[in-house]
C-alpha cells in the first residue's frame, strides 16, 4: 500500500493492518539535530491524534501524535539509542513505532504522496 501522511508531518507505511510510523524529511529538517525521543509504551492503545511521544532536538521539542487509532506493537529501540537516525534516515531506519490499526477507515482521510508534497511546500 502507498505511504500515507498526516498534517503533523508523519508518514505511515501500512502492511496487513499494521502501520509503521515515522516523521518526514520535512519534519526532521525543521527540527534540526534530534537528541532525544520518547516512544510510546508497547501494548498501549491510543486514539488518533493522541500524543504518543516526544521528539526533542537541539532547537525544539515536538509532540509525536498517533496518526490512527490502534495498539502499539513495537517501538524502534535503535532510534532510542541513536536519535540522530531520525535525521539521517527519517523514512527508513529512523522509524518511531508500529501500530495495529483498530479503525483502518481512518487512513482514507490521510494525504497521499502528491497531496503531502503540496501541503509541506506551503508550511
Amino acid at each position: 500500500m502507498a505511504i500515507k501522511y498526516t498534517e503533523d508531518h508523519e508518514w505511515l507505511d501500512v502492511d496487513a493492518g499494521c502501520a509503521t510510523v515515522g516523521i518526514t524529511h520535512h519534519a526532521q529538517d525543521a527540527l534540526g539535530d534530534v537528541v532525544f525521543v520518547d516512544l510510546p509504551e508497547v501494548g498501549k492503545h491510543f486514539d488518533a491524534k493522541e500524543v504518543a511521544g516526544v521528539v526533542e532536538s537541539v532547537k525544539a521539542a515536538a509532540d509525536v501524535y498517533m496518526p490512527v487509532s490502534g495498539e502499539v506493537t513495537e517501538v524502534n529501540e535503535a532510534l532510542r539509542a541513536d536519535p540522530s537516525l531520525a535525521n539521517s534516515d527519517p523514512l527508513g531506519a529512523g522509524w518511531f513505532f508500529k501500530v495495529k490499526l483498530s479503525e483502518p477507515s481512518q487512513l482514507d482521510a490521510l494525504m497521499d504522496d502528491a497531496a503531502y508534497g503540496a501541503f509541506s511546500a506551503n508550511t
Partner: protein
Amino acid sequence: MSSSTDPLRQTPLHTLHLELDARMVPFAGYDMPVQYPSGVMAEHHHTRTGAGLFDVSHMGQLRLLGPDAAAALESLMPVDVIDLPVGKQRYGLLLNDAGGILDDLMFVNRDYQHNGDVFVIVNGACKVADLAHIEARIGSRCEVIACPELALLALQGPQAVTVMQRLAPGIEKLLFMSGGRFSVMSQAQGTHQQIDIFATRSGYTGEDGFELSVHEKKADALARLLLAQPEVKPIGLGARNSLRLEAGLCLYGNDLDTTTTPVEAGLTWAIQKVRRSGGARAGGFPGADIVLAQLAGGDSAPKRKRVGLKALERIPVREHTLLQDTAGHPVGEVSSGLLGPTINEPVAMAYVLTGCAGPGTRLNALVRGKLVPMEVVAMPFVPTRYHRG
C-alpha cells in the same frame, strides 16, 4: 572572540574528521566533530567500556617560564601552585576582581625551577581572553608563551592505558594528575616517524585516561596510530558533554561563568588550605576578600549553590530550565542537563537557593509547561575511575 562572519578555524585533525564522516559543528570558533556515524550514545558507551579518542585541539595551551612562574600564576587563582611537585597536575580557577570565574584550567609543574615551565591548558572559548588576562597581570613576572602549534588529543576509558602502554611502555606508571614526556613510533605508509608527546593522566570524562599534547605536524599521524588500535574509536563533542556531566564535571559557560564564585560553584575542594584564611599564603588572588568571606560562612555564605539533580521521570531537563520548590516558589535554574546514557536517567547541574541545596530536596522543573519532579543528589552521577594507584 570570533565574530559570526569569521571563517571557522580547523584543528590539525580536520581532514581526518571528514574522512571518518563526522558531523561537524562550530564550537569555540572551530569546525569540530559533534559525533561520528555511530552516534552520541554509542560513542559515550564506548568511552566507558573501551578507549575513546577525542580531538580537543581547540583548547588553549600555554607555557609560563622563569623562576617566578608558579608564584605569578598563583597570584591569579585561589589555588596552590607553588607547592605542586614536579610532574604533577592540578585543577585551577582564574578569577576576576569580584571573585567570579574567568575560566577553569589545568596546570602542570614541568620543572619551571630548572628551565622547564608551568604548562597550562585552558578552554577554547576563553583562550584569547585568558592569554590577554595572564599577560596583562603577570607578563612582567614570567615569560608567557602561547602554543598554537600544539594539538591536544584525549584518550579516555578503561582500555586507554592498555593502548598507551603498548605504544609507550612505562606510561602506565603515571598516576592520575601526573604528566611526563613520551615518544611513540608511527609506521604509517612504511615510514618510521617518532612522535613526541607530553601526556598527563587526566581528562574530562570521569574515566581513566590521558591527554596528549603533540606538535600539530604530528597530530594526524598520532590520531591515526591510536585509531588503528583495536580498542579505540573516535568520539565527538556530543559524547564529551554527556560523559563530563555524568562525571559531575563543570562546563565553563554553562556551569561556571563570571557571575559564579568558586564557593557558589561548589569547587572549594580546589582551594587548598594554604590559600585560605589562616594559611601561609592566604588570599593574594583577585576577589580574595569576597571568596574568603564566602568560605567563612555565616552572613557571608553564598545565597545560591551548584547542585546535582536527577529527574524522577524520563524527561531530559536542559540548561535554562527554571526550577521551583514544591510550593511553587522559584528557587533556581538548570545550568546543564541531559539524559545520561550510562546512568540512563535525566541528570542536571543547577544553581539553587542554598536552602534547597541539601541532597534529597525535591524540586520541580518547568519543562514545556509541565512540572517535572527532580531530586538533589550528590555528584558524580556515575562513579569515577581515576587511576590513583
